[in-house]
């Protein structure tokens, strides 16, 4: 059974995605495939968390933007590495539907753009989990 899920946001800035991944202790590398239940799932980049077999796949779509893909499936079917399905660990770290990673990406894009423009940034996490960023033209 494949449970491959695509995140709703479009990624334009691959370096901002690298910054976002690093904020969770993950690394992003160029890769032709990423680890999930289905083998040989194509991608341009794979995001890896230390000690987790399943990976987040970063794919380029027809418009030239990237999208995030992962399989949240978890099961332990035996001693071999390929019997270990640990997509749940991706969800634990990156949030349901990779929401936290997507949020960190948007934040990284805003920080980068604000810094290039010389705007001051004030960031606050709201009680409901949303992030409010205020850019002030100094």
């Amino acid at each position, binding site marked *: 059974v494949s449970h491959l899920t695509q995140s709703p946001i479009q990624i334009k800035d691959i370096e901002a995605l690298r910054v976002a991944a690093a904020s969770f202790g993950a690394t992003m590398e160029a890769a032709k495939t990423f680890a999930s239940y289905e083998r040989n799932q194509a991608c341009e980049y794979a995001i890896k968390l230390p000690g987790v077999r399943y990976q987040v796949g970063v794919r380029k779509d027809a418009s030239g933007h990237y999208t995030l893909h992962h399989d949240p499936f978890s099961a332990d079917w035996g001693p071999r590495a390929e019997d270990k399905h640990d997509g749940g660990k991706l969800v634990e770290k990156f949030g349901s539907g990779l929401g936290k990673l997507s*949020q960190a990406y948007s934040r990284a*894009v805003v920080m980068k753009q604000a810094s290039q423009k010389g705007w001051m940034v004030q960031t606050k996490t709201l009680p409901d989990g949303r992030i409010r960023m205020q850019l002030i033209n100094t």
Partner: protein
Amino acid sequence: MKPTIEIIIGTEGEVTIEAHNFKGASCEKATKFLEEALGMSGKKNRKPEFFQQETAKQSQRT
């Protein structure tokens, strides 16, 4: 009041942008770089300030 851009990033990475203390089209210009970088193509909600004329802005200053 200094021109300010307020950005809310939702729990799935979705973004809303609001510009404050800009007048007229300068508001759209100010947020364009963020919309482009974030790949946003959503509908714009224009606040009353957008429809304020430059002349009105000038008269406020006097």
